[in-house]
């Protein structure tokens, strides 16, 4: 590893300086970093709300905050985390950075639209932040009618507008990715030679493009209802509040697949690299991403099991919800099969990948519990559901995000993070996470309702355990902030391919030059071709 040469090489970070070069950049790599900073901020704001929630739940009485404030806390936690952190997270940061490189392109198809997407997220986030500082929203992140349209006197419209604007960020990113993947693959990069990370993002982009407009129009209708009292969701005027639920969940269920598919793409990359083996069943994993995208649009009614929706509809949605679990299971089986007879090593990204597989499996299996009509009637609106989706979104998506962040950190920054601190953080996160959310399964099953801050004293032990776990989890999230930032300046320089992984992104320097490749690659090998072991390259032509 030649340090002096790497330091002087021109790359996307040192080719221009100054605020304008960042705020007006068209470079997908810089835009990815802009997103990274933005979503980290939103993550910690959402985390602050979570902290307040967990502290309040230490005691059975409502003593830290009033019920009204508590309503605002969990609402804003959900809104921040879902719309402003999780949905952008992997696609806008890792996806933006890596997809062009992975397919051998110099940038995305529409670089300026990419920058616009970032600005839209920032503007949307500022709207939502303004609403939160002005007093917040108390409707729950699902802002069901008629409470949100008629009775709530909180900042519904400002928050909804923020989500509306951020939704366009999501749509444009999806559009960009679709066009890029269709039109800008390097010679020889056929569809079935693409890394599974790219397949996952393609499926995600399809969902973003098809689903997000529906919540956009739903927000417009809520806006009209709230401002003009037109009665579209108001029974007194002939409207139907359940119509809102259908419209809302028609987007919001596919939205959860927007949150998990990119994570699964990351895991495919990590498992393959750290088993030094091609992903078992590549075609099935690629196809399962598309299947999840399609099936994900057919199951929204499982959020309406107790909403006066007919039992017949409930049966159909329940059946389809079981069906949508199958592609996810295919992935888990294929990842496991990849490990078999692989040369497995336990670097930090792999620790996160293992954590993902375990926690996503638990989350996914409990998803089957709630997909079953009978069980769901018992556990709906309890902490069981809360635990289920946190296992997937936090235990799954966020762990995959951190794993991917660590894996590609040397590519992004040209530096390696301190391995032992990183491993320690991964373990802390895993332990903290399970202590936080496993008790919530039990709580929910025993009847603890969600969105309540006053509860019977017999639940306190489990709540205390959950809050203690959350404290540990918080430490686990703060540590990477510190050591990753430290490593950017003081970490050891990384070469182009420190993990000896396959993939076009590893064939260029770390950090990459402005236009990604000095010469565009021609692809002749399949994805994950470890038959000829990539050597650690010391310099790149």
């Amino acid at each position, binding site marked *: 590893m030649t340090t002096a040469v790497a330091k002087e090489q021109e790359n996307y970070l040192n080719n221009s300086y100054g605020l304008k070069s960042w705020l007006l950049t068209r470079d997908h790599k810089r835009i990815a970093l802009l997103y990274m900073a933005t979503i980290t901020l939103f993550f910690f704001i959402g985390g602050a709300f979570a902290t307040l929630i967990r502290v309040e739940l230490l005691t059975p009485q409502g003593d830290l905050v009033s019920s009204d404030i508590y309503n605002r806390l969990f609402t804003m936690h959900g809104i921040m985390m879902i719309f402003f952190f999780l949905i952008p997270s992997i696609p806008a940061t890792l996806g933006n950075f890596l997809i062009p490189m992975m397919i051998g392109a110099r940038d995305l198809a529409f670089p300026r639209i990419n920058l616009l997407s970032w600005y839209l997220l920032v503007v949307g986030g500022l709207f939502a932040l303004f609403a939160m500082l002005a007093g917040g929203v108390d409707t729950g992140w699902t802002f069901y009618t008629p409470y949100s349209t008629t009775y709530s006197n909180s900042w519904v419209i400002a928050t909804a507008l923020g989500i509306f604007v951020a939704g366009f960020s999501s*749509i444009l990113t999806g*559009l960009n990715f*679709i*066009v890029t993947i269709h039109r800008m693959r390097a010679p020889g990069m056929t569809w079935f030679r693409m890394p599974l990370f790219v397949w996952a993002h393609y499926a995600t982009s399809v969902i973003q*493009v*098809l*689903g*997000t*407009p*529906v919540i*956009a*129009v*739903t927000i*417009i*209708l809520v806006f*009209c209802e709230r401002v*003009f*009292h*037109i*009665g*579209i969701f108001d029974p*007194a*005027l*002939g*409207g*139907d509040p359940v*119509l809102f639920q*259908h*419209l809302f969940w*028609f987007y919001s269920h596919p939205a959860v697949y927007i949150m998990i598919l990119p994570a699964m793409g990351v895991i495919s990359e990590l498992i393959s690299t750290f088993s030094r083996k091609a992903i078992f069943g590549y075609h099935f994993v690629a196809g399962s991403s598309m299947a999840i995208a399609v099936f994900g649009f057919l199951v929204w009614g499982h959020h309406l099991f107790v909403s006066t929706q007919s039992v017949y509809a409930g049966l159909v949605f329940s059946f389809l919800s079981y069906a949508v679990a199958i592609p996810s299971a295919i992935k888990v089986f294929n990842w496991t099969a990849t490990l078999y007879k692989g040369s497995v090593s336990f670097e930090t990204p792999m620790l996160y990948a293992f954590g993902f597989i375990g926690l996503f499996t638990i989350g996914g299996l409990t998803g089957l519990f709630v997909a079953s009509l009978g069980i769901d009637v018992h556990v709906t609106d309890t902490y069981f559901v809360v635990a289920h989706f946190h296992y997937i979104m936090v235990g799954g998506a966020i762990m995959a995000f951190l794993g991917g962040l660590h894996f590609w950190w040397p590519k992004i920054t040209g530096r390696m993070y301190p391995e032992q601190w990183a491993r320690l953080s991964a373990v802390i996160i895993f332990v903290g996470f399970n202590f936080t959310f496993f008790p919530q399964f039990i709580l929910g099953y025993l009847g603890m309702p969600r969105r309540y801050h006053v509860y019977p004293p017999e639940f306190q032990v489990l709540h205390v355990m959950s809050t203690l776990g959350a404290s540990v989890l918080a430490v686990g999230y703060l540590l990477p902030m510190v050591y990753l930032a430290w490593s950017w300046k003081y970490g050891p320089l990384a070469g182009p391919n420190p993990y000896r992984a396959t993939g076009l992104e590893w064939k260029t320097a770390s950090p990459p030059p402005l236009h990604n490749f000095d010469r565009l690659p021609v692809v002749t090998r399949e994805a994950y071709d470890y038959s000829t072991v990539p050597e650690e390259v010391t310099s790149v032509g």
Partner: protein
Amino acid sequence: MWVFLITEVMFFGGMFLAYIVYRAAYPDIFALASSSLNVYIGAANTAVLLCSSFTMVLGVRAAQLGRQKALAINIVLTLLLGFVFLGVKAFEWREKFIEHHVPGPSFHFAGVAMQGPAQLFFSLYFAMTGLHALHMVVGAGIMTWLLINSIRGKYTAEYMTPVDIGGLYWHFVDIIWIFLFPLFYLIDRHLK
């Protein structure tokens, strides 16, 4: 642009769903409310938009053949027809306002016991034609930009992509209106 148009389909689709739900729930009131809209003006507007799509097609063809002047003239015609549509729409809305058919505190639809469903019809009418009109304004902006560029001679037979995709967008907005017109103006019209 095709991908973007798919998102637009989903966008309008949500409102179409609301329309379907409420028309199925209140078919008679919807029919009655529909008959209060002026079908002749609506039909004329439809013809205007169809002609504007035709002139747009002529413009795209002109661009393909590298005929700059024809391109510019056709874009101007498309723009003019678009403005005619918007003007007629504004006139229609004003009529509705005078008749107290605008949802809100002064809404009153004569001839029905329950005002709610009638108000729903008009809410959907204003929301959907309003959203459509908004898209037309954006379309007018795109046409203006295309016009300026075509006068500057920027589009040749080799490079006319912006004209192509601008045309796509215009046709899409036109097609939305083709759906809106019968759904709002022609409910049970054949039974009268």
